[in-house]
């Protein structure tokens, strides 16, 4: 970039909402800081070693960072011993000592779940729930509190599943589940769920979970995590969540690599979810396309990859490249795809246009523009070096004068630029444009002709 280019680039912002302030020119400020930086570097000299700078205390502790040390652990020669900064408190010495001695983080919370369940379970002594623990009823109240603490302790702290087996009756198990849910620790809930899954029949477990939404969600996530999709599918179906079940199966199918098996699987599993029905059809078409097509085109435009399992629009593009002129009745014809899958006019147009332009099939491109009553290619910016005549026609169709001008400039459609300036009655710009066309060319003489003809410049449009 030359300096003026750069100036222009930084200053040419046209943005309103987010613009560099006009008064304080951004470029000059950034450059100013750059210059300052450069001049200083000359002065100080030999300062390329930024790490050294950072050690001085600005940029943190990169040399000593764990992230980096993992890789450089063997070469640990230049590690500085870390200075232990003593904690500074704002609120006096008494706090400091306390925070160090009493509040060791791990000692703070361990076992609080037990405390929770303990306090909640004091309800057990009520006559309503007490009967759940018939064998222990004879014991004094305090004792089976202890029993609960001991049991739950096993669940929550030691993580020993075996000890859960003391909970034998269904009611006991469910109560355990309810308490674990109240503790809000997903870990504990999962532990109890694993236990219930082992010891209860599917039917009963599913049924009980229905009235326990939190536990149910944890169970579903647990099955997702452990990839027990068979059981999960059963659960979702028993809950009547057919859509979720279909989506789960859909997710499953992504791991099937054989295409025909995949298609059959899709057919069977997606029936309940209507909008997904089309996916097996799509794959069916792709299998047909994968095998078909004329050899010459494949030689001319080699495929980058297989079309199997590609998105619909990609499939349409593929069909537009390799199966464009097939009869509409053929399953691989793009028009057939368009109708079967109800592709929007715009989507199809853009896709077909890109495909045919890539093949330089200009007559098809023409046909697309004109037969479809399309207003103008104002969306499509790539043209893949179309012949000037075709290009000029398309650019001429752009409604917006500014966009048309920029496109015309880019693709050297002289006539369009000239005509647009003429219509804008901008003599000055036209004069300027003359320098850009070849001297003595057709465009050059047209400009002279226009400039000399006063009829175009009458109504106060002339600036000279």
């Amino acid at each position: 970039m030359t300096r003026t280019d750069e100036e222009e680039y930084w200053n040419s912002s046209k943005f309103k909402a987010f613009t560099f302030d006009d008064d304080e020119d951004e470029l000059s400020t950034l450059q100013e800081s750059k210059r300052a930086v450069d001049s200083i570097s000359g002065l100080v000299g030999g300062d390329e070693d930024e790490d050294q700078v950072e050690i001085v205390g600005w940029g943190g502790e990169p040399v000593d960072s764990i992230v980096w040390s993992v890789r450089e652990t063997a070469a640990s020669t230049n590690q500085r011993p870390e200075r232990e900064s003593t904690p500074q408190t704002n609120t006096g010495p008494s706090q400091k000592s306390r925070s160090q001695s009493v509040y060791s983080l791990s000692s703070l919370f361990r076992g609080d779940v037990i405390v929770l369940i303990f306090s909640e379970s004091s309800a057990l002594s009520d006559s309503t729930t007490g009967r759940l623990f018939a064998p222990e009823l004879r014991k004094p109240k305090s004792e089976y509190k202890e029993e609960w603490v001991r049991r739950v302790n096993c669940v929550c702290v030691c993580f020993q599943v075996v000890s859960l087996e003391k909970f034998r009756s269904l009611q006991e198990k469910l109560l355990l589940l309810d308490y674990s849910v109240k503790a809000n620790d997903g870990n504990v809930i999962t532990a109890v769920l694993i236990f219930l899954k082992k010891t209860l029949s599917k039917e009963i477990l599913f049924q009980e979970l229905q009235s326990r939404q939190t536990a149910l969600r944890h169970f579903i996530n647990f099955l997702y995590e452990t990839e027990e999709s068979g059981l999960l599918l059963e659960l979702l179906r028993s809950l009547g969540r057919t859509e979720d079940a279909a989506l789960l199966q859909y997710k499953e199918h992504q791991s099937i690599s054989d295409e025909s098996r995949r298609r059959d699987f899709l057919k069977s599993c997606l029936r309940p979810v209507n909008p997904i029905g089309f996916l097996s059809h799509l794959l069916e078409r792709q299998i047909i396309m994968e095998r078909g097509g004329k050899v010459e085109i494949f030689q001319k435009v080699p495929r980058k990859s297989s079309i199997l399992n590609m998105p619909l629009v990609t499939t349409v593009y593929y069909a537009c490249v390799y199966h464009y002129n097939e009869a509409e009745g053929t399953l691989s014809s793009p028009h057939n795809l368009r109708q079967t899958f109800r592709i929007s006019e715009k989507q199809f147009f853009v896709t077909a246009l890109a495909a045919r332009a890539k093949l330089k099939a200009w007559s098809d491109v023409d046909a697309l523009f004109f037969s479809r009553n399309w207003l103008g290619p104002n969306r499509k910016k790539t043209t893949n070096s179309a012949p000037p005549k075709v290009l000029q026609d398309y650019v001429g169709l752009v409604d917006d004068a500014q966009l048309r001008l920029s496109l015309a400039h880019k693709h050297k459609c002289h006539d369009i630029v000239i005509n647009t300036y003429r219509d804008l009655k901008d003599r000055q710009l036209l004069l300027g444009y003359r320098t850009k066309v070849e001297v003595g060319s057709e465009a050059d003489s047209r400009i002279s002709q226009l400039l000399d003809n006063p009829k175009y410049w009458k109504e106060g449009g002339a600036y000279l």
Partner: protein
Amino acid sequence: MAAHLSYGRVNLNILREAVRRELREFLDKCAGTKAIVWDEYLTGPFGLIAQYSLLKEHEVEKMFTLKSGRLPAADVKNIIFFVRPKLELMDIIAENVFSEDKLHSSRDFHILFVPRRSMLCEQRLKEQGVLGSFVNIEEYILDLIPFDGDLLSMEYESAFRECYLENDQTSLYHTAKGLMTLQALYGTIPQIYGKGECARHVANMMLRMKREFAGSQNQILPVFDTLLLLDRNIDLLTPLATQLTYEGLIDEIYGINNGYVKLPPEKFAQKKQGESSKDLPTDPKKLQLNSAEELYAEIRDKNFNAVGAALSKKAKIISAAFEERHNAKTVGEIKQFVSQLPHMQAARTSLANHTSVAELIKDITTSEAFFDNLTVQQEFMTGVDTDKVNTYIEDCIAQKDPLIKILRLVCMQSVCNNGLKQKVLDYYKREILQTYGFEHILTLNNLEKSGLLKLQTSSRNNYPTIRKTLKLWMEDANEQNPNDISYVYSGYAPLSIRLTQFLARPGWRSIEEVLKMLPGPLFEERQQLPAGLHKKRQQGENRITLVFFLGGVTYAEIAALRFLSQMEDGGMEYVIATTKLINGTTWIKSLMDKPKPKTP
């Protein structure tokens, strides 16, 4: 070592020290020489609380990243796995342990789960038959990690997904625990406000945990006056918008991870004379970003449009400082000058770096694509044509722009229209599935479940009312010398921060109607303080509010809160905590469906 953590009103170094102490205690439990095998994800967060030298002092001689296969050779007594509780990691650990040379089996294995032990993981280790090989299985509670003098994050990546999509409230349990830790170190927070289901839940758990510890009174003079708990889903709009502060843009474009950013190296190359350009570095340039760097602290929260001027001003100051050498006449003066050189040199490096970063960002913010995208966002935020299919989005889909960009825009339109009409929603969904592939149905399904994308159920769109009442859109936002938080999005004032602002003054009672329109309950709780711990405030001393964002917060929102802290007549200073630092892209990504690996 982390002095910048103590610059703020609340000295977060106390928290850092506490977690470091925990780490040392664990390391000492495994007597003898050690090697640590790292779950790579954890090295970032750990880097914020400890350096390698701390580990070395406790006989850590080698460090490896967790990989399947054999463990690298290391002549140490202990092998310690530092891992998140993830099932797939357990399988790798099992493989490592199995392939250990049995003849050489004098090495002891340990696992340190961060931040919590997991039943599921231990079960998996048991199934794999290696659970018995571990001498120690412990957890390292790293709930809240200090990121800066006024910023804490749990870096719990899936918190939003778990809370609003999977309805798993484990992250809230950890949040409550983190807050209890914080109260243990900084005193009971006397007043709690909140809005949203998750907020209510966290507050309930905190109050319950406090009851359970009724025996041990917290005798620390409270540092925080107020805790404000906010659900991310009361403000789904803000993270979807492109952040326009300096730090926000760095994060949007390059991604800030654990306080570091990786940048394309070209602009940082220092060309020496006569050096050819082919020697330019190819490794990304890595910069640490926090308030320890004076210049960065100054400019990070500015609107990007004001960064150029700030850099230039700084350049002048530095140049002037270097010119001082001409005035140094006596030996003493020269000595004085030389003693300042390292500091000035650091300032120069800092200036050079940020000038380069600003140039990189400017290349993007001045592009047509950036401008068009921003224009559409601002149309949505001001309520223009949110009820029909947007042609820009349509065009972006036709051009196969990155899917996340499309999803951000569609979700934003949905949020600003209080849901999309059936026809519009179906159209977008079909276009996306047809163009990007059908597998994204799972992602769209996730976005719908979490409320980012929804069907308009009532005929009334309440977003305009919310926008007007809370003044979410400010014409003529002043980017250079802001007088309102809306500068962080060049016009849009983040809803979450407006709520925070209203709470401080004049109080939420004035906006009751709007608060009712936002999801979840509104609540206020008081925690009793022991006698003698009531704070006696100095004249003119600001109050301190801890704002906790459940489900993530963006750098632009943080900038807005810092702006409020600095307001002269604000009377309130903010410390920010969150489950995860997010931007629209990382947020949407966390909600996308993870494809299953293919099996033959």
